[in-house]
């Protein structure tokens, strides 16, 4: 049975929920779990203070209720499944390497930051710097699948070097800034300067803005790549699969840097 943590009342302070992961809770009793400290200030805030616990196998952890103060949910996740029925704060799924994290609500900035594997799905909106590195880090996301059903903020996909990001709603300015490699798909509208200083990698934009002059038109051509990825994305998003199956035009860039990246747009 799933381990269920039901929020009692709105949290009195920002919470660090990163200790609540399947592999960290394995073998712990309900009492031990209730004693875990989630505080980020000098005031104490244990799991038992914040949540009502229903014991169960920690292979799947479910949070009933969320808050913009739920920080670092699923940070460092390696296996199993964590689900939140509600909103979360910063760093959701940061550095996760496996397993599945599902946010049934909105996520704050740095969701999926530097994630390396597994699947992160956000049914609502995501804040700025989706999948991006934190201060001082060299790379952002380096593997796995990140799906946002709503909109994403600015600089989604900053410094991503591997993995796949799918944004079904709109994306803000500087999408995929400094992109190193990987695949990023946006089905909604996109803000200014997508692919700003991208080196390699693939953006597929259903409704692109006017691209920067450092992206050059390569025209249309035949390749199995879109069809193969359409099949991969079909279980996640029918609309994304449809976009990949449509006639696509390639723009190469960002020529201000390496210039081996590409933006596909409907031809």
């Amino acid at each position, binding site marked *: 049975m799933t381990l269920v943590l039901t929020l009692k009342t709105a949290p009195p302070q920002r919470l660090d929920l990163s200790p609540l992961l399947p592999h960290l809770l394995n073998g712990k009793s309900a009492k031990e779990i209730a004693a875990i400290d989630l505080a980020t200030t000098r005031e104490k805030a244990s799991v038992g203070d914040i949540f009502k616990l229903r014991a169960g196998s920690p292979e799947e952890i479910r949070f009933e209720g969320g808050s913009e103060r739920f920080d670092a949910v699923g940070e460092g996740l390696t296996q199993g499944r964590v689900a939140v029925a509600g909103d979360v704060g910063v760093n959701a799924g940061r550095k996760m390497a496996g397993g599945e994290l599902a946010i049934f609500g909105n996520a704050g900035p740095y969701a999926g930051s530097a994630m390396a594997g597994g699947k992160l799905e956000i049914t609502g909106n995501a804040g700025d710097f989706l999948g991006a590195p934190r201060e001082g880090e060299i790379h952002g996301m380096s*593997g796995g*699948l990140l799906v946002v059903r709503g909109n994403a903020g600015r600089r989604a996909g900053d410094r991503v070097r*591997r*993995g*796949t990001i799918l944004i079904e709603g709109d994306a803000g300015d500087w999408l995929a800034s400094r992109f190193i*490699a990987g*695949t990023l798909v946006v089905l909604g509208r996109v803000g200014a300067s997508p692919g700003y200083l991208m080196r*390699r990698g*693939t953006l597929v934009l259903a409704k692109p803005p006017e691209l920067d002059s450092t992206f050059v038109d390569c025209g249309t*051509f*035949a*390749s*199995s*790549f879109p*069809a*193969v*990825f*359409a*099949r*991969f994305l079909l279980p996640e998003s029918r609309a994304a699969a449809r976009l990949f199956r449509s006639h696509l035009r390639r723009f190469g860039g960002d020529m201000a840097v390496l210039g*081996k990246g*590409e933006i596909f747009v409907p031809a």
Partner: protein
Amino acid sequence: MRPMIKNGVRIDETFAEAFPMRGTALLITGPNKRWARQAAVTMTGFATSVIGCGCEAGIDCEVEARDTPDGRPGVRVLVFAMSSNDLQSQLTNRVGQCVLTSPGSACFADLNAPDSLKVGSLLRYFGDGWQVSKKFGDRHFWRIPVMDGEFFCEATTGMTKAAVGGGNLLICGEDYEKTLRAAEAAIEAMNEVRDAIMPFPGGIVRSGSKVGSKYKTLHASTNDAFCPSLRGLVKTELDADIGCVLEIVIDGLTEAAVASAMRAGLAAIVRLGPRKGARRVSAGNYGGKLGPFHFRLKDLLP
């Protein structure tokens, strides 16, 4: 050897002796059936025997467009060699020269196995720096810019060390017409078996060989015991009513696939009967001491 008789066809009490090989499978797709098949035919050309060709290769089956990764018509090819290194170099050369070059082709791994061979991860260098790596889940592909668009190629494919090469049937008939008819019927049935190929021209070999030769430089020479023209001159294996012998050689990804193919071929020959087809079926072996796999004809009878 005491023959068994099935529907009038004599089945020798003997076995085919086969050897372990390294095997791999690729799925080649194209813009239509014709060009998918063309790439596969070209890639598996000149691949009848490891003795002179470096590998043995053939078409396993056609794959419907809805069952291929890119939704285009495909053809599954199998390639076999005696060592991993031989198989790797043959695969690189053949995909590089025959599939990469074929209009509109793409190339996918089609064998799940613990070991792997490089395909796209070597051919990518043809892209001269413009090649693009694409990963999704645990699959890795290379996109190589070419003059008609892009060559899309999986980075690696699986390699099995449990492949079996050298399963065979010796089809003996009264005359040329009947023997060829029996061999063709066998091949038609055997083509339906998955994971197995018959690498010789159209699946049939007329120049079966024995080990050794009177000439020092040759390792193999004509199978004189089965040559009708030498009956009486050498220690012959042929009866008075046999005027022609054709052989089918089978390579399979598993021992079971080779057995299934031989079983299907035998059944087709027996069904045809001696009046229209073969009078006798035998199999080639080296006394059972060289190859670890023995396929006894009587165990494979319908």
